[in-house]
């Protein structure tokens, strides 16, 4: 029964034409689709397992690293002040590279350029912890990606990737997350794919993970070849998603099923 419904829905999605973007008033964080139990896990810091990474991040923020023997705190001081609202503006344009970088990319640029340390691996405990700690300082701050004109073509590329059908299921992100977010796929809510709480703790992962991990999992789900961690395509998708979520409050560290 469930399998049949699942296949029917996927087929319907594959056949349907793309609808428009979600109107401003109808935008909903993934939080709004969750059960009361999962919401409670996010609401209380002492219940939220994502806070373990935030704590780790606070320790790393103060730890000296690299040949420069500098800690994040040596330049940026108290993260609670200096990092407030910062994550809400990412990905941001990096002039030296001529492309946008996400928060994880920025942390690694800081490591290589200023701390003269080796960059952290994607999804490493350290990178997740530091990005969670930095992003948590923006909790409640409305998402506001920069209006830097140099970013515009990358937002456009991200949008193009979002609506581009791909994979063996021939689905675009938009087929689910713009057109069918009020429906269910198997037992799960489809959601709008709003990136409000990353890095976040997924019950499925039983761990904290980045938006890039989530995007790669989705792409694998439609049976397409996932872009590599750190690839420009993933950053463009992140950038488009953040521009699509403009004004929604940051929830890091969110909890999701």
């Amino acid at each position, binding site marked *: 029964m469930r399998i049949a419904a699942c296949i029917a829905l996927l087929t319907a999605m594959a056949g349907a034409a793309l609808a428009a973007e979600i109107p401003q008033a109808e935008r909903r964080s993934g939080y709004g689709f969750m059960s009361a*139990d999962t919401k409670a896990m996010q609401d209380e810091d002492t219940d939220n397992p994502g806070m373990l990474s935030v704590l780790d991040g606070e320790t790393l923020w103060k730890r000296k690293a690299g040949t420069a023997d500098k800690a994040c705190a040596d330049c940026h001081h108290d993260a609670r002040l200096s990092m407030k609202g910062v994550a809400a503006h990412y990905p941001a344009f990096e002039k030296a590279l001529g492309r946008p970088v996400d928060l994880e990319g920025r942390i690694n640029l800081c490591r290589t350029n200023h701390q003269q340390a080796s960059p952290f691996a994607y999804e490493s405990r350290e990178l997740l912890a530091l990005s969670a700690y930095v992003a948590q300082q923006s909790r409640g701050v409305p998402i506001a990606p920069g209006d830097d004109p140099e970013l515009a073509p990358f937002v456009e590329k991200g949008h193009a990737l979002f609506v581009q059908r791909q994979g063996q299921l021939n689905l675009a992100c938009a087929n689910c997350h713009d057109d069918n977010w009020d429906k269910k796929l198997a037992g799960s809510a489809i959601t709008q794919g709003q990136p409000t709480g990353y890095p976040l703790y997924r019950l*499925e992962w039983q761990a904290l993970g980045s938006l890039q991990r989530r995007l790669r999992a989705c792409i694998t*789900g439609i049976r397409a070849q996932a872009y590599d961690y750190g690839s420009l395509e993933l950053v463009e998708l992140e950038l488009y998603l953040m521009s699509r979520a403009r004004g929604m409050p940051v929830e890091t560290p969110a909890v999701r*099923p």
Partner: protein
Amino acid sequence: MANSEHTRRTFFGITGGAAAMVIVRPANATPAMLQAAIRNVVGEANVRSGKVKLDIPPLVENGNTVPMTVSVTSPMTADEYVKSIHVFNEKNPQPNIGNFYLGPRAGRAQVSTRIRLADSQKVTAIARLSDDTFWSVTADVVVTLAACTEEAI
């Protein structure tokens, strides 16, 4: 029965796009294993139903992290209290979930934790009181599978 269940889930995992990372394997705990695990705690004592309350969602969004609270009706005085609470499951590879040892100074016989359920199944909580009587409650939990799960490790 167990075989068809496994086939269905394997197929479902493929439909979802990738192998499920939850504990999907044929070797579920058998009813005999569950009975043995319970006997291991209660010995030959009779287990009565009552006094124990199990708060667990009847339908869970992800079997990897299921919130659960067990509470026992007890005055929690020096003479009359809950010694321990034992939680078991029916279909995970192992029947035990956790043992929790309290005492009169707990004040309130209640523990919460988060558990893993590999499939829709029954969860049983058994309390041992200070007079060495055993009381239990059982709840049914339906575990839905995520539509798009990641590749295994």
